[in-house]
């Protein structure tokens, strides 16, 4: 399913369809997370990936037009680079522990303590919240900082919608 969507995304030249397909892709990924019992992640993926990102894509498309520029020829160095990276990733994936293996290193380090002790140390029944907001609150603070920086960057590049219109009115008054 994901493979079919990815190939379709690569082949289609109509950007409106591509934006819609990325939304569907996110929704499928959200269902996949849901099947793995990662409800918190599925939530975020459905709202951000399938919802808000698609709207931002469509808003951008309404400004730049919906046709992708045709690709004239295949860029051989780029193709070689991508193929090499893909081969490396496939090679590295051979060393990964089997999916759901309880002996995997990631399940041996701090996870047992989170599962057995978090109710006594932090309290909330949702361990994800305990890890996110208490054990790893430095990480979360950094993540909020990243989101904050993204907003500052967009504001600097695009400007805030309302202020821009005021500026234009001021310009119009200055011009005549």
């Amino acid at each position: 399913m994901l493979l079919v969507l990815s190939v379709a995304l690569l082949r289609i030249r109509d950007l409106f369809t591509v934006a819609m397909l990325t939304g569907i892709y996110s929704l499928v990924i959200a269902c996949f997370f849901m099947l793995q019992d990662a409800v918190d992640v599925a939530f975020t993926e459905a709202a951000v990936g399938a919802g808000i990102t698609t709207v931002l894509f469509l808003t951008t498309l309404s400004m730049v037009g919906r046709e992708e520029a045709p690709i004239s020829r295949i860029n051989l160095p780029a193709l070689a680079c991508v193929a090499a990276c893909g081969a490396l990733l496939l090679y590295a994936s051979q060393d990964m522990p089997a999916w759901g293996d309880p002996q995997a290193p990631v399940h041996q380090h701090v996870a047992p303590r989170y599962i057995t002790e978090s109710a006594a140390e932090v309290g909330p029944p949702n361990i994800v919240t305990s890890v996110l907001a208490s054990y790893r609150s430095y990480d979360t603070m950094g993540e909020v900082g990243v989101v904050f920086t993204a907003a500052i960057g967009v504001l600097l590049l695009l400007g805030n919608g309302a202020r821009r219109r005021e500026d234009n009115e001021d310009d119009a008054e200055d011009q005549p």
Partner: protein
Amino acid sequence: MIQKPSSMRENPILRGVTSITLGPILLFAWYVQWHGDYGPGGGFQAGVIFAAAIIAYALIYGLDRAQHFIPPKAAEIGVMSGWLLYIGTGVLNMLLGANFLDYDVLASDPLHGQHYGILAVELGVGITVAAVMIVLFYAFAGRRHR
């Protein structure tokens, strides 16, 4: 280019569905925000759900009415104040004699302290994420008016 959104806005089905679902979506965001420590969810999820409701409102009823409801200035202040609330909770812990972001000292009982601390930082996360999403949408959609 401008014809399409305006015809979408006049579509009675879209207008009706939006006006019916908007309230439940906002309520659900509120629920996800405060119930994140008992069920799935938390600040990030609540923030994007809230922002999605505002964006849906702006898409159907127009950017101006959405900006009347949440002014761009308020969204920008939200971007900052959420993160400041997060860091401020950490600093408050330091003032009370514990480590940065160690919530045990916020109440007489460490477990209650942890609970208050988590609620505070999750609220900070929620405010920042919702405000950032709204600011991004305003910035993108505002350019179309030029």
